[in-house]
């Protein structure tokens, strides 16, 4: 079997401007939704209580709501979780509340109006924790960005590292944009998925850049755009196959992983799709516009740092 029967290099760079405009528009849309709608943060970040119940028969959500209302709870949300038997109750953080007893008191309230529930899970997060998690998440993101930029600059060229990180941050923002637009729950595991995507889709750029470097070194007389086209074309089969394989695994999580892994897998799916797109069609044009050229690679073996262009090339 051979899926990719490409005889000529595909002229990706000819349409570079179009792709970058598309990226810019999606990026701006994502930013717009992030600001206008905001992320639907999970209890881990906002603080509050989460209670998962399971009924033997299909649960009557109205009765559950009624029971909670009678017990004096306000601002709660009740919804099905995974199946019609499982119910998820979210309670906001309150100052004067005996947090230790909240699970019990909810169960007591329900036992009258909507009996037959068994407690599956209770999660309580205090206000201190949420703020810290958000801070740590931002710090982790920053560390990943710095780490990758430094590593790529060291292994390749600063132009590569800058365009790779821009392309991949663009992915991250778009994932967040999706979560904001659909108001999917943004939890800690989604954060983990986002950071994993960042590391993973940089892979993609690395593979393409590796080829770019190799082509620059091996072949003379090609324009930068042709080199990029060649590099992308010759790696496109591996790009699609690899991402396809990873996506198969993620799809399996999406289907079998249940509610807990659902958003995690969803974030990965979006990340993988945009990862292919951005590393091929965003990072490469950026590299071109940042002015990457053959000399930067052939001069690697030069004797003196900062030798001028007339300097001997060894």
């Amino acid at each position, binding site marked *: 079997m*051979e899926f990719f029967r490409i005889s000529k290099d595909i002229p990706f760079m000819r349409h570079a401007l179009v792709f970058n405009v598309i990226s810019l528009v999606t990026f701006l849309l994502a930013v717009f939704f992030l600001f206008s709608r905001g992320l639907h943060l999970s209890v881990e970040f906002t603080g509050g209580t989460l209670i998962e119940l*399971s009924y033997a028969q299909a649960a009557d959500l109205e009765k559950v709501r009624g029971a909670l209302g009678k017990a004096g709870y306000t601002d709660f949300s009740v919804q099905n979780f995974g199946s019609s038997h499982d119910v998820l109750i979210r309670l906001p953080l309150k100052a004067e509340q005996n947090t230790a007893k909240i699970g019990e008191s909810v169960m007591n309230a329900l036992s009258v109006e909507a009996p037959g529930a068994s407690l599956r899970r209770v999660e309580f997060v*205090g206000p201190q924790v949420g703020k810290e998690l958000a801070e740590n998440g931002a710090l982790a993101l920053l560390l990943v960005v710095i780490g990758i930029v430094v590593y790529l600059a060291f292994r390749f060229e600063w132009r590569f590292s800058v365009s790779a990180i821009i392309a991949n941050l663009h992915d991250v923002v778009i994932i967040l944009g999706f979560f904001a637009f659909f108001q999917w729950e943004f939890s800690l595991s989604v954060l983990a998925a986002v950071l994993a995507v960042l590391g*993973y889709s940089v892979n993609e750029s690395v593979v393409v850049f590796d080829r770019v470097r190799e082509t620059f070194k091996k072949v003379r007389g090609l324009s930068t755009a042709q080199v990029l086209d060649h590099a992308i074309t010759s790696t496109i089969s591996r790009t699609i196959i*690899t991402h396809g394989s990873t996506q198969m695994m993620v799809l399996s999580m999406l289907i*079998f*992983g249940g509610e807990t892994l659902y958003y995690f897998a969803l974030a990965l799916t979006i990340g993988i799709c945009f990862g292919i797109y951005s590393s091929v069609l965003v990072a490469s044009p950026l590299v071109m516009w940042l002015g990457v050229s053959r000399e930067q690679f052939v001069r690697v073996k030069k004797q003196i740092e900062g030798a001028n262009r007339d300097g001997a090339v060894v």
Partner: protein
Amino acid sequence: MNRYPLWKYVIVALAVVFGFLYTLPNFFGESPAVQVSSGKATVKVDSKVLERVVATLQAAGIENSGIFLDANGVKVRLRDTDAQLKAKDLIEKQFNPDAGDAQYVVALNLLSSSPQWLSSLHALPMYLGLDLRGGVHFLLQVDMRGALTKRLDALGGDLRTLLRDKNVRHAGITREGERVTIRFRDADTRTRARQIVEDNQPDLQLAEQGEGDDLKLATTLRPEAIKRLQEFAIKQNMTTLSNRINELGVAEPVIAQQGADRIVVQLPGVQDTAKAKDILGRTATLEIRMVDETPGAVEAAQAGQPPFGSDLYVERGGLPLLVKKQVVLTGDRLTDAQPGFDNQTHEPAVHLTLDAAGARIFKDVTRDNVGKRMAIVLIEKGKGEVVTAPVIRSEIGGGRVQISGRMSTMEANDTALLLRAGSLAAPMEIIEERTIGPSLGADNIRKGFHSTLWGFAAIAAFMIAYYVLFGLVSVIALACNLLFLVALLSLLQATLTLPGIAAIALALGMAIDANVLINERIREELRNGSTPQAAIHTGYERAFGTILDSNITTLIAGVALLAFGSGPVRGFAVVHCLGILTSLFSAVVVSRALINLIYGRRRRTESLAIGQIWKPGNQHGVIAD
């Protein structure tokens, strides 16, 4: 050129054997067990206890399938859960005849059913996190300000005693925020006092303030003393928590410090979460203080003007009571508290035992205050409650104290339990709580397992269809990766959570990238006219640089997650990082070893079974090698 030296094959073979060995325990499952461990520091669990357990079970005719002693205590493996429950009740009755004073913790547990020889190799099943096995997780925050304030209040008392002993007259000692101020009327006295305090309280920093006849000596704790105090507070709280948890009978509780001022408590397998929270949630501190009995003071306090140096509390009966701020004793001087009865009146009573320093202080205080009342104040979440305020009948020496009067047996029991469970050095608050029912845990394992299984199957099917023999080799390498990863997780006993299982699946999905890179590269070399052997060689060679770069960038993300993540993210990050490392080895070394075994020894290789190689008919060649 495609041959490995023998030692490389040996390394691969050893790695696979190691992988099998340490993965093996995960297949044996777990069997019900009962665990007997020490409930008190003074009680030792040794071979005598083991013999006693054997005798107890034999007498009742309960068969066991293995009994042994380890660092945690005596563990008995039983045939089924019925026998487990029966055995637990029996042992509980035998070992703790007095339920109020449990010497041993008897708990239900699950033990790995892997054979002894595996366990002795330290090959254990993966350590499952709470979201997979069910249980309770708490994160408690220790109120360090509270600890400091309390220390300073006690310090005020110490300074007062010290200056009185040395006959230095001062004009009052007060705590103002984080410092204690001593006032003086003349400079000479202040100099003398300063000398004395410096000699006796090395933890203090002194500063002279004020002028005229309002001279002050401001004392603050040195930073290192504060640090020591905080370390002590968290240790003390952890000890107290483990005492309290012992009452619950949990087989493998985890009590660990997290950061400077937090404590994580994990109680795997606990079903009765309400009781657990109740016992842990009693984040109370205990203080013994004197009652302020100045006539008319209570009325003034009720009107909103409590006298200086006293607090207004409400007694359990509902009567108002003025209690001096100065702390005579804190709960950490208390070594034991038991409910019982007064010898003469046969009223319910609580018997307290104090440590040596506590006993001395208590003796002094009671001698000076016969006929007066002292209050035992329980402080929960910043609010104080007077548990009891007995009258001191006589000087009490020897550290044995009895509190009696106006108490029911029930109240005596409650009070004793609260006192005995140990009081905390600093107040604590639950800031995060997670309770996972056992059925949810089993569900999560099933879901995680199925995700990985089907994902793996899909990838394997595709790889073999697309790359034929090279695909099969890639799949074997991927399976080895899974084997190594599970073996490493079992060996390190890293906690496996549901995000951890997701990370295993993702690691496999990402690890295949390396093999795809290699296979594509080999195809490309073939397309460009290399001989099969040369194609294999250059394919692996060229792909390696790319694989290394891309794995390192992924690893950077993994390490950042590990450094800043907590809870579920950490569980994900650990597996993610390990997965990247194992995939580097398996995708490059293991798959190469297999390919070398298959093709390396053939003299003439006409073609490679790597699937169809399509060559463009007319080469608009950009590559001109």
